[in-house]
């Protein structure tokens, strides 16, 4: 079976062409605990929000062994409106579990896109089945901007507590915002909406390579959409309570996956982001509750210790990536007392840019490079935790906004290093 091939059943029927206005894809892998609720709520949500439209539910499963596929079939009230696809998952996808819990997610996305294209759907939404309860309004939030607002990509904006999603808040969001000029709060996530135009564009691309079929499909689609000037909006979805089917991957591995996919896309789309300077907010849909859930206190001490351990042991590796001035900054940061431990936003932004450049220049094995950033990231997280410990939601937003501005300010440094890497060789 070739990459992206999949077998489909429609309650054991074939997919009919021109059969639906809206396709809602549910991606799963060993999600027996949540799949029934997700399917029921998805069907209910589509019927309630789009009563006059023909909707089709596509369940893409990576060969679950816990009966997820059977449970999904039983949960569907109308089996004619459910297509089940088994997308290919290769050993490589299982050897290194993806951070989002859907192995070979790119193949799943592609399988749903192919069906949406065959059905000539006007809009398609994708949700991961690892959510403990899918709110029925989510399909509407993701699909309506496409159908009525003529948007091509609808990205999620979740309600998260201040310590939640620090990789997104500390790296992904500021980096995408600074480079691509779009204030996308969740460039990589689990739930998205797509237009037929964007799906037609993506499915014809020859870039569904192993990089894309793995964990990086979200980053690839988002950066492709921005670089090709597709219209993008974001939808407030509220809280996303995950119910993962397996243990989470080690932080350094997850970080390496996220950064690896992001850095690859930065390399691919270099001509597009070098022209942009400022960033602009995006049209948002749904209700922005702005009431972040309460968070349990977080102890920053283990993260500070991790950073210091990294500083003691990984300086040789970091010195191949970072310029001497940054290494000096790190030395000062490592020697700060625990209570006043701070990691400057500008320093952090430059470090992320330096690692992106080192990824492009292949100064060392990419896995080594991407895993070597973990102690630095934990140092920044510790500083962030100490900074927002007493902060309310508004102050946290201001803190993240400040970080984003630092990324935007340091973009000139990144472009200069990107264009003339030898001139800045550490």
């Amino acid at each position, binding site marked *: 079976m070739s990459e992206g091939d999949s077998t489909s059943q429609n309650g054991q029927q074939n997919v009919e062409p021109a059969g639906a206005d809206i396709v809602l894809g549910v991606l799963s892998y060993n999600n027996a605990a949540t799949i029934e609720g997700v399917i029921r709520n998805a069907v209910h949500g589509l019927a309630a929000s789009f009563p006059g439209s023909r909707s089709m539910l596509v369940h893409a499963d990576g060969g679950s062994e816990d009966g997820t596929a059977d449970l999904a079939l039983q949960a569907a009230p109308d089996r004619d409106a459910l297509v089940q696809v088994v997308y290919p998952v290769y050993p490589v996808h299982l050897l290194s579990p993806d*951070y*989002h819990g859907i192995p070979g997610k790119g193949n799943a996305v592609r399988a749903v896109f192919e069906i949406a294209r065959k059905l000539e759907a006007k809009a398609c939404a994708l949700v991961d089945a690892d959510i403990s309860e899918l709110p029925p309004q989510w399909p509407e939030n993701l699909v309506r901007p496409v159908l009525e607002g003529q948007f091509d990509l609808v990205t999620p904006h979740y309600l998260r507590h201040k*310590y*939640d*999603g*620090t*990789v*997104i808040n500390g790296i992904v969001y500021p980096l995408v915002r600074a480079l691509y000029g779009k204030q996308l709060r969740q460039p990589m996530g689990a739930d998205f909406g797509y237009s037929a135009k964007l799906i037609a564009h993506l499915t014809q691309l020859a870039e569904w390579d192993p990089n894309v079929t793995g964990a990086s499909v979200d980053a690839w689609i988002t950066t492709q959409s921005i670089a090709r000037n597709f219209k993008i909006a974001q939808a407030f979805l509220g809280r996303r309570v*995950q119910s993962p089917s397996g*243990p*989470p991957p*080690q*932080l*350094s591995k*997850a*970080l390496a996956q*996220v950064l690896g996919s992001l850095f690859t896309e930065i390399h691919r789309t270099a001509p597009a982001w070098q022209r942009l300077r400022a960033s602009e907010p995006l049209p948002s849909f749904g209700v922005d509750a702005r009431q972040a859930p309460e*968070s*349990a206190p*977080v102890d920053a001490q*283990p993260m500070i*210790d*991790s950073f210091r*351990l*990294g500083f*003691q*042991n*990984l300086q040789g*590796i970091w010195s*191949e990536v970072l310029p001497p001035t940054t290494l000096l900054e790190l030395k000062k940061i490592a020697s700060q007392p625990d209570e006043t431990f701070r990691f400057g936003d500008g320093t952090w932004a430059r470090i992320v840019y330096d690692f992106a450049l080192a990824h492009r220049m292949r*100064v*060392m*094995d990419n*896995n*080594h490079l991407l*895993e*070597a950033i*973990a*102690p630095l990231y934990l140092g920044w*997280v510790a500083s962030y935790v100490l900074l927002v410990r007493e902060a309310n939601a508004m102050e946290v937003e201001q803190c993240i906004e400040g970080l984003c501005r630092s990324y935007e300010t340091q973009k000139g440094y990144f472009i200069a290093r990107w264009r003339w890497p030898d001139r800045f060789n550490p």
Partner: protein
Amino acid sequence: MLTHANNVLHQAADRLVNTVADFLPGLLALLVILMFSILAAFLARAVMRRILVRFQFDDRVTRWGLPELAGWAPARRPSTVTAQLSFWIIVLLGLLAGVSALDSGLTSVLVVRLFDYLPKVAAAAVVLITGFLLARFLARSVLISAVNMQIQSARLLSLGVKWLVMVLTSAMAMDHLGIGGQIAQLGFAILFGGIVLTLALAVGLGSKEMVSRSWERQADKNERDAEGQFHHL
């Protein structure tokens, strides 16, 4: 009697002259070959130096970490050292070819043996370089993973892995060259077995409690993550 002595002396002188006359063309050939090989070596060194500079060999070698790996920090640049090495290899080959032109039994055997030995030297060099690169890669992998797993003695572990692979590689290279014979293999087996036994004893007896505490800490951490207090993604 005098005539006989005179004849013997004449014959000896003839033999000497004949021998010298036989030897001189060979010597001349040796000198000519040596001269040409030195000229070729100069040319090769210059060409090699230009090629290496063009391909930024110094930067690449530094990035690969070969000097650091071998604990070798030459005063001269790696490209200069490599070019010089190519010079001396060509001179040595010219010398061997020239010596074979002398056509003496001893030198011929020597040259044949040396040429027979060269592939082994090349194979040993390949084994050494591959082993050193592998040692560096594994040492880095262990160092980064150990730091990310909060292991305090990460550097020690990394160094251990590096030297283990380098010792294994050296033993393989020496085996290729036929140096040391069984001694190198035995030495390596004793060293490797000793390290494994030491580690087993250290972990099994000495650090039993430390290992158990480490596992408990890891389990606690997993539980905290599972409780969802802190999601990085």
